[in-house]
């Protein structure tokens, strides 16, 4: 979008304050919950209208409920899947966690990093390793990117997934070093083959043995390495620090988070991103970056409105959240896989490409059929979502025609239903509309 080329960064990243020109509307509250969570129910939207943006975002960043206790419970559920080869049960538990967590933003960012550090159980073939991997991601999803990278390069699932469980002095694993540099940190084209070879030497001695990370000193190359103008007997930690000193790393990550939370339709200008990149590069604090983005004028502007395509998870959970039900997430995980988002199985080391890639003629048929299955009173989801109950709960207080209530709940826009149309038909049309496919 052209307007972004000329946006004033100072205005863009200043916190949004409602004004007569830019009032706090249902549409803005819906937008916030689509981006910072997996959609909202009517109560949340109404509360957001009362509380205003600042307090609503406070709640999304720091939920009042006991998040630690919730996550402990769900970590136990995850552990119950044991040592199976399949991660199908883990998929189901994760979707349930996304739906019920007091902090959906944390799961949203966990999903983001899952695609960034894209490890597939198709290669790892161990629910136990995938569980640890995701737990590690979750622990830093809104924490320190620096710590996250350090932890990930020692994570057994990641090392198995990248075929890097034996980093011998005689055979440094260049593909691990290449992925670390080109995908995890600096981005494509920012390093030479020479940089990659030097970095790979620092990772020698790193092994996975009996399911655990193990550093074997005698397999470590402790000689001098040259990397980005620095020379020394660098360890893997040193290399990561050097990579994070490169401006390209902060730029890469900030751009990627921007596409995830604000706008994936058009890349932002460097000048627009400069203040965020500078700030992020100081300490790689994710929660400050995400908070700045979510509170910003830019986030709540037209320039970002519906400028993302919902991933299948967002598409499906948006319906479930809005209708305040709980469906079989085992079934849902399978249906989401058919839509191209098989959790714990990103297609390649590059993760899910997102954006337009989610949309083709087949996926739209399948999205609509999933919507139908979720909404109908019987079948694989057993009628767990009850639109009429939600209508009874709220519509009289909302004082709108039935179809408009659902348009406000899911799209936050006005709608004229065809005369005599059933509420089921209206709702189906809403959730299969082009607008509902956008975030």
């Amino acid at each position: 979008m052209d307007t972004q080329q000329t946006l004033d960064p100072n205005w863009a990243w200043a916190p949004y304050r409602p004004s007569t020109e830019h009032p706090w509307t249902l549409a803005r509250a819906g937008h916030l919950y689509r981006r910072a969570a997996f959609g909202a129910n009517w109560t949340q939207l109404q509360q957001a209208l009362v509380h205003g943006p600042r307090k609503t975002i406070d709640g999304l960043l720091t939920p009042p409920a006991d998040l630690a206790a919730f996550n402990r419970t769900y970590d136990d559920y995850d552990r119950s899947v044991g040592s199976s080869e399949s991660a199908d049960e883990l998929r189901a538990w994760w979707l349930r966690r996304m739906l019920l967590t007091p902090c959906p933003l944390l799961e949203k960012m966990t999903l983001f990093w899952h695609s960034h550090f894209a490890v597939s159980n198709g290669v790892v073939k161990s629910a136990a390793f995938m569980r640890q991997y995701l737990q590690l991601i979750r622990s830093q999803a809104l924490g320190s990117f620096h710590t996250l990278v350090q932890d990930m390069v020692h994570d057994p699932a990641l090392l198995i997934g990248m075929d890097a469980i034996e980093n011998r002095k005689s055979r440094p694993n260049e593909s691990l070093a290449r992925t670390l540099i080109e995908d995890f940190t600096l981005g494509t084209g920012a390093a030479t083959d020479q940089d990659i070879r030097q970095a790979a030497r620092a990772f020698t001695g790193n092994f996975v043995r009996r399911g655990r990370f193990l550093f074997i000193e005698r397999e470590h190359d402790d000689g001098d390495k040259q990397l980005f103008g620095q020379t020394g007997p660098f360890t893997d930690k040193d290399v990561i620090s050097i990579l994070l000193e490169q401006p390209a790393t902060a730029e890469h990550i900030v751009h990627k988070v921007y596409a995830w939370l604000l706008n994936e339709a058009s890349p932002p200008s460097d000048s627009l991103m400069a203040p965020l990149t500078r700030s992020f590069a100081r300490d790689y604090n994710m929660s400050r970056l995400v908070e700045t983005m979510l509170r910003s004028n830019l986030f709540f502007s037209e320039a970002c409105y519906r400028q993302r395509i919902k991933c299948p998870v967002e598409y499906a959970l948006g319906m479930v959240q809005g209708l305040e039900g709980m469906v079989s997430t085992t079934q849902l995980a399978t249906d989401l896989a058919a839509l191209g988002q098989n959790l714990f199985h990103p297609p390649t080391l590059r993760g899910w490409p997102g954006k337009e890639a989610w949309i083709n003629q087949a996926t739209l048929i399948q999205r609509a059929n999933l919507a139908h299955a979720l909404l109908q009173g019987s079948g694989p989801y057993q009628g767990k979502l009850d639109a009429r109950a939600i209508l009874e709960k709220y519509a009289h207080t909302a004082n709108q025609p039935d179809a408009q209530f659902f348009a406000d709940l899911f799209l936050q826009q006005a709608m004229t239903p065809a005369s005599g149309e059933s509420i089921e038909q209206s709702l189906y049309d809403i959730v299969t509309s082009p607008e509902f496919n956008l975030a």
Partner: protein
Amino acid sequence: MTMTRRSFLKTTLETSAMMSCMPMVPDWLVRSSLAQDPSGNNDRVLVLVQLTGGNDGLNTVVPYEDPVYANSRPTLRLPVSDLHKISDQLAFHPRMAAFSRLYKDGHLSILQGVGCPDSSEDHAVALRHWHQADTEDRQTGWLGRLADHARLNHQTGVPVALVSAIKRPFILTAQQAIIPRIDTPDKMTLVRPTDTGPKRDAQTNGFLSLVQETSAQSRIMSDRIHQAAQIQAGDAYPSFALAQNLQTIAKLIRADVGVRVFFTELGGDGFGGFDNHANQIGNHCALLHQLSESVGAFVADLKTQGLLDRVLVMTFSEFGRTVNENGRRGTGHGAAAPVFLAGGKLKGGLIGQHPSLTDLQKNSLKHHTDFRQVYATALDTWLGIDSQAVLGQQFDTVDCLNV
């Protein structure tokens, strides 16, 4: 076609201005053709049939006159009188009557001696090579790359489809594209019609108009598949899973929804049914019978429907088997094997020499035709899709098609 029973009103963040929006005739929809050409320059279709487990080529196309064959296979050699003669040297397995008929009609060709350099004896590795179209590690399969290639041209159609209930094979792994499983037509039919309303303005929001246009096209796709699925095939298909999958493929071809490549298979998950290390005869008979009868019914159906000239069927297996049987009435993992082509535009006959039964590698036949030459032929000559863009290298094509 009436598309709009209702209209969504344009909204902005600031207002929800009420304005009247009359349902419009979606002529833009009529213009956007569904059977758009995803990347090639014709409307031909490729059907890949994977024979999972490593098919014993020597007991499929049998060199019955070669004494080495009989001597190497004391229990597995097939009685000459039961074979379906191809030439004075070669014959089809006794249970392949349908293939023999297709061959005589010019609807079947046999590419002999096809294999992979650095042929692996490990199922997973060998299959991975065939799926990657490479012996070096790659993150994507070649059909995935074909679909990615179409995506790069900003096409939202479905160039590749999986028509089988098996675990999703690596060959479909793509960087960008999402390749659907359509093992029954209803999987790709809208349970309830969608209504995406009046045309959204691409200037205002490119994503919105992309989703809307694709959604409109998906509705046409669904309608066409639904209609094609209703038509009873004049020719009966056997009840084998492969035959049922091929019947689905015939319906999808008839629906004309732009799928260029269909992937299906025989042999199932795990190591695959063709992996016969012991007591091979019975199991192999059954599988070859299923293959032959299923493809036979498919070709007959396509011919009746006037679609055969658009279709090329290609079989492949991760490897052939050892020349010697192994003392357990079975065979070990081998190397080269024949690839079958079926369709309406074949040169016909035997293509390439049968590999020698005495000049072997690890007791297995040597290949003279790289498997990627066959892929390149399917891509360049048949589909009109640049093979180098998909395979990453240029391979000589095989002269086997009448196009």
